[in-house]
């Protein structure tokens, strides 16, 4: 009886192996992952931003293959850009995603269609959670930038104004998700397995003391 796929030892060993391989600093992997992240992040950001000509974008950070720079860009005449801050994607995004993929691949079930659905839903939840963390941090930092303008772009429009309580909560959300991302990844992985393939789960004991 357990809340885990069987045989558990094999699944955990395979997970550890896949994870270790994924976390090896392969040449070119960081730059490729960062470019992909920037493309996806900018596509998502373009859907959410409604204050042209001011917009924020993700750019690969110079000299750091696993980092992206959040840039505020003003495309109006006389506008400029402000580099707001860097995000270290290897720990913030890549490692949690690798853990989720490793767990999912290692615990693959015979019913591939159900497994694929569970994987897709779990992956969407993990990406949504990480996106929430990044949006929280970007919002807090942008509010600080606009509170103390440092350049042409940040002097034009105050997009974000946060009170101390809102700023504290958003910082807490970012820190909680980024520092404990593996806990949430494991929870999402377990939930996605339970939701779409509950028959694959061994039962928990029914009686409690």
């Amino acid at each position, binding site marked *: 009886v357990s809340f885990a796929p069987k045989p558990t030892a094999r699944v955990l060993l395979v997970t550890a192996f896949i*994870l270790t391989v994924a*976390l090896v600093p392969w040449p070119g992997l960081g730059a490729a992952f960062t470019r992909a992240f920037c493309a996806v992040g900018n596509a998502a950001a373009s859907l959410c931003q409604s204050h042209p000509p001011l917009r924020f974008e993700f750019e690969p950070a110079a000299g750091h293959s696993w980092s992206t720079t959040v840039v505020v860009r003003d495309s109006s005449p006389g506008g400029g850009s402000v580099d707001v801050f860097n995000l270290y994607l290897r720990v913030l995004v890549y*490692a949690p995603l690798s853990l989720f993929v490793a767990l999912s691949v290692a615990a693959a079930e015979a019913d591939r269609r159900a497994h694929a659905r569970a994987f897709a839903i779990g992956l969407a939840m993990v990406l949504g959670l990480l996106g929430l963390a990044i949006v929280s941090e970007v919002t807090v930092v942008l509010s600080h930038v606009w509170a103390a303008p440092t350049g042409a772009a940040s002097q034009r429009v105050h997009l974000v104004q946060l009170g101390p309580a809102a700023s504290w909560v958003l910082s807490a959300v970012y*820190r909680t998700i980024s520092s404990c991302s593996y*806990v949430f990844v494991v929870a999402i992985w377990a939930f996605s397995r*339970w939701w779409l*393939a*509950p028959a694959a789960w061994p039962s928990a*004991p*029914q009686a409690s003391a």
Partner: protein
Amino acid sequence: MDPEGHSVTGAPRGRGAHDLRFLVTFVLISGSLCFLYCAPWQPTGHVAGWLHAYLSAYATVVASVLSLLDPTLHAVGTTLSGRFSIQVARDCDAAEALILYGASVLAFPAPWPKRTAGLLAGAAGITALNVTRLCVLYVVGLHSREGFDFAHEASPPLLIIAVLGAFVAWARWVARPRPVT
């Protein structure tokens, strides 16, 4: 549900709800603990002070173990200072692994004595494993900066996998059939 008591996905009636209760309880406990641990407390407040004292104690324990290998090593606050320096920061104390294990054990339907035993044994085991991890990181750092970076980033998720194994072992111990007397 069909008339024979199975859900549309094939799970027996009631089992899915039981497992979902475990998952929801786990998420509530782990989320709360993670929030308490990670919230941006005042740097000069009580919580920050306790955390600094806890991390300093952690560094002292690691230094006392590593001093057997490197007599020059000593702990200064949260920093291990020797032929190579490591700072024991907030995320270096395996809190994430402890929260994952603790929330899993607390959410699992088991008698409280077995939960208590699981929590104590698990906390001791995870702490010992993490002290070993920090010692290995120091030794690796002595020889290779790249090796240190890789081990530093790869070891936390591997610790999480070890914790999953520990929880499954505990859950099986809890649910094992009792001998008939």
